C-alpha cells in the first residue's frame, strides 16, 4: 500500500521539474519534452487520486491525457519542422522576427 501523499508529491515534483525545464531551457525540443514531463506529473496525480478513491475515473482521464499529449506532440513537432525548414538560410541569432 503506497500512501497517497507520497504519490502526489512525486507527481508534483515531476510537474515542477517539467516546469523548470520549460522555463530554463532554450532548446525547443527539450522544452517540449519538459512539457511532456509536466503532463506526466498530471497523469500521476490523477492515478494517485484514483487509487486513493478506489475508482477508475482518474485513470480514464489520464488515458485521455496520453492521447492528448500525443496529439500535441504531433502538432508541435510539425511546427518545429516547418520553422527549421524555413530557417535554413537564416542566421541563428536572429531568433524572432517579431520583436517590438
Amino acid at each position, binding site marked *: 500500500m503506497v500512501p497517497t*501523499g507520497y504519490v502526489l508529491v512525486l507527481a508534483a515534483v515531476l510537474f515542477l521539474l517539467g516546469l523548470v525545464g520549460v522555463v530554463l531551457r532554450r532548446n525547443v525540443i527539450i522544452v517540449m519534452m519538459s512539457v511532456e514531463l509536466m503532463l506526466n506529473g498530471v497523469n*500521476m496525480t490523477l492515478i*494517485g487520486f484514483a487509487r486513493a478513491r478506489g475508482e477508475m475515473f482518474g485513470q480514464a482521464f489520464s488515458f485521455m491525457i496520453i492521447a492528448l499529449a500525443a496529439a500535441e506532440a504531433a502538432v508541435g513537432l510539425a511546427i518545429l519542422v516547418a520553422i527549421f525548414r524555413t530557417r535554413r538560410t537564416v542566421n541563428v541569432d536572429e531568433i524572432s522576427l517579431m520583436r517590438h
Partner: protein
Amino acid sequence: MDLLSQKTPLSQRRPFISSLMATIALLVPWLATSVAWATPQAAAAAKTAPAFNGALWTFYIFGALTIAGALLTITRRNPVTAALWLVFTLFATAGVYLSLHATFMAAIQVLVYAGAIMVLFMFVVMMVGNTERQEFGIMRGLFSKVVALGAIALLGWRLISLLMRQAPAKAAMVSDGYGSVHSMGGVLFREYLFPFEAISVLLLVAIVGAVVISRRSTEEKEEV
C-alpha cells in the same frame, strides 16, 4: 542549468548512450516482476508478511528513478540524450503506476508514451539535426529566469507542503480487477464513451494540422 552539459559532440558519445539504452533494457524485466508484486493479490499476500511491502518498495525505487530521469532530461544539453532520459523517466513512471495498481495505464504508458510519442520526438530530433539551431527560449535574460525559478520554487513549496497535509490519509481498498483492462474498458465505454469518441477528433486535428503545417506553398513546390 547548462553546467552539466558536455561539449563533446554526439558522435563521440555513443558508449554513454548505449549504456543508457542498456539500462532501459534492464528496466523492462524489472517492470515485469513488479507486476507480480504490485497486483492486489500480491498485496493481499503481503499482509500475511508485513515485513515486506512490495508496492511501497516498488514505488520508492521507481519514484527515485523517475525523479532522477526527469532531472537528467531537463539538464542534458544534447536533445538525443535528453530524449533517452525522458524514455527512461516514462518507464520509471510506468513502474510507479504499477505500484498504484494501474496496470493498464502502466502498459499504455510504455506502449504509447515511451513508444510512440518518444519515437516522434526522436524522429524530429534527428531530422532537425544540428542542435545549435534549436534555440528558442521563452524566458530571456538571467533576471527573468531567476524570478521564474523563484516563483516555481514558491509554488513547489506551497504545493508539496499542501499535498503532504491534505492528501487523503487512507487509500480505499480496491478489488481484484482494479486498474485492469477490463475495468478500464468498463469506464471508457460507459461513462467516458463520448470523450473516447471525441478524442478521435482531436487526433484527426493533429493529423490534419501536421499535414497543413508541413505543406509547402504551391510556388515552392514548383521550384523544388
